[in-house]
């Protein structure tokens, strides 16, 4: 197992756990959405770490494709969530 695996794998797990903590505990909706994105990045980091085979070998392309799909899905969900928040804020303002 390469050092890169250790480092990045560990940090991916930590980022995911930190993100989860923030999703559950943070007050603001916006911060929770950011936390969800951070959590997602943690999972992606674990995926890319699995794919890494060393500085000289070609990495496994399948996790790369999975992460690409994941990034696009995450931004779609974030966009929808942000629009919902904006609508709700406008409703609150007009009360």
């Amino acid at each position: 197992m390469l050092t890169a695996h250790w480092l990045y794998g560990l940090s991916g797990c930590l980022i995911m756990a930190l993100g989860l903590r923030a999703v559950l505990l943070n007050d603001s909706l916006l911060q929770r959405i950011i936390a969800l994105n951070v959590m997602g990045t943690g999972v992606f980091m674990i995926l890319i770490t699995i794919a890494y085979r060393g500085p000289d070998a070609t990495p496994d392309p399948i996790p790369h494709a999975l992460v690409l799909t994941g990034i696009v899905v995450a931004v779609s969900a974030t966009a929808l969530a942000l629009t919902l928040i904006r609508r709700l804020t406008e409703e609150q303002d007009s009360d």
Partner: protein
Amino acid sequence: MIDILIWLVALPLAGALAALLLPRYATAIVISTAIATSISAAALLYAVATHGVMLYEIGGWPAGLGIALRADGLAALLLTMSALVLLASSIYAGAYFRENLLRSRFWPLWLLLWTALNALLLSGDLFNLYVTLELLGLSAVALASLAGKTAAMQAALRYLLVGLLGSMLFLAGVTLIYAGYGTLDMATLSRVVAAGPIAWSALALMTVGLLLKTALFPLHFWLPPAHASAPAPVSAVLSALVVKATFYLVMRLWLDIFSEVVIPQVASLLGILGAAAVLWGSWQALRAERLKLLAAYSTVAQLGYLFLFFPLLQALPAGAARDAAMGGLVILALSHGLAKSGLFLAIGIIQQRSGHDTIRDLDGTAQRLPATTFAIALSGTALIGLPPSGAFLGKWHLLSAAFSAGQWLWIIVIMIGTLLAAAYTFRVLGHAFGQQPYPRHPVTIAIEEWPALILTAFATIGLGLAGAPVWQLLKVSL
């Protein structure tokens, strides 16, 4: 014939795109797509019954390198139920939404939800499941927020965040599986997965993610507001199908892929949570002021019943008793799907005609809307589990499984749950049959009342008679 698997996904997707491009003909496109998809689902059911498990490798690439679609008895049954519910709800929705504006936004999202459901039920690849879960979640949230009121949007936002959290945990589990086994194909995994830290962690992560989406107690907090404030046809599909789809995934994981990894104690934990869901959900349904909230809490309770099967299936050795319990589980799931969707559609009619759905003010409903009240009564029989409904068969097998496994606690829970269900059903019917002093002319059955009637009739009579065929189909399994 094998192409039917991909047509089940391609048809609703094509319909969604067509409805978006040609908004003037959207309703016609949707209804014809609905009919075509339903016929395909029935064809799949027939094909699985005669030919066994069906496999379709997309792109021609072997499963593992590419993505495979698989259909066995369970998937085919759920697909047919979804098709029936969605077809009926589409007809209902056509009459429910008056303005063309709402329809032009509703129809494409509706068909995209159908695409997601079919894709999920047929998928044979773990990451593909993640993508279908996200598609399902986003389309459900978009549809739920169409009601436009603040409460609906708050509930939709909470639903979205919970759903995203669940998907993220699911993806983490999938990542661990790929790290440990190097493949995402579910059939391959069910052969190679062995007990160990990777399998346990992955199963735990995926299950928690799915339980969030299936609203198992205590992760159910998001469901009642979301299902109660969505428009009626959307509530029907959310309660009947969307939560069932994620439950189906829990079944696949626990009973199929990870069957050797599961520990009895954790299965009992699922059972305990299910029992809590039954008791809490039924109690809250009894206390509910509004019909839609009652129906939503009833969904929480009914899902609890489904989870009661897990410790029993774990405890029973392979054989006739276990097969009967499986059959009971599936029939209960199908019955709830049909009955709950019919209930929500009926409540929608009441809401539109009376302007409200408060239970105390339901007097005169039986006089004005006799067909709808009958539909509610039928749905109630299916939710309580009275003969000859399919739910009766399901609960009967649940009880016999509990007897044979010697786990008496569940029997008490089931009895209390059934009593509470009877209480809240008769409470609603009691109010609905209240006489108004000056009864208006009874309205003849309008087109929007037929779907609710047909769905609930299927749930009570249809499924009750269909027990044996369901058993046969379930034997065709992966």
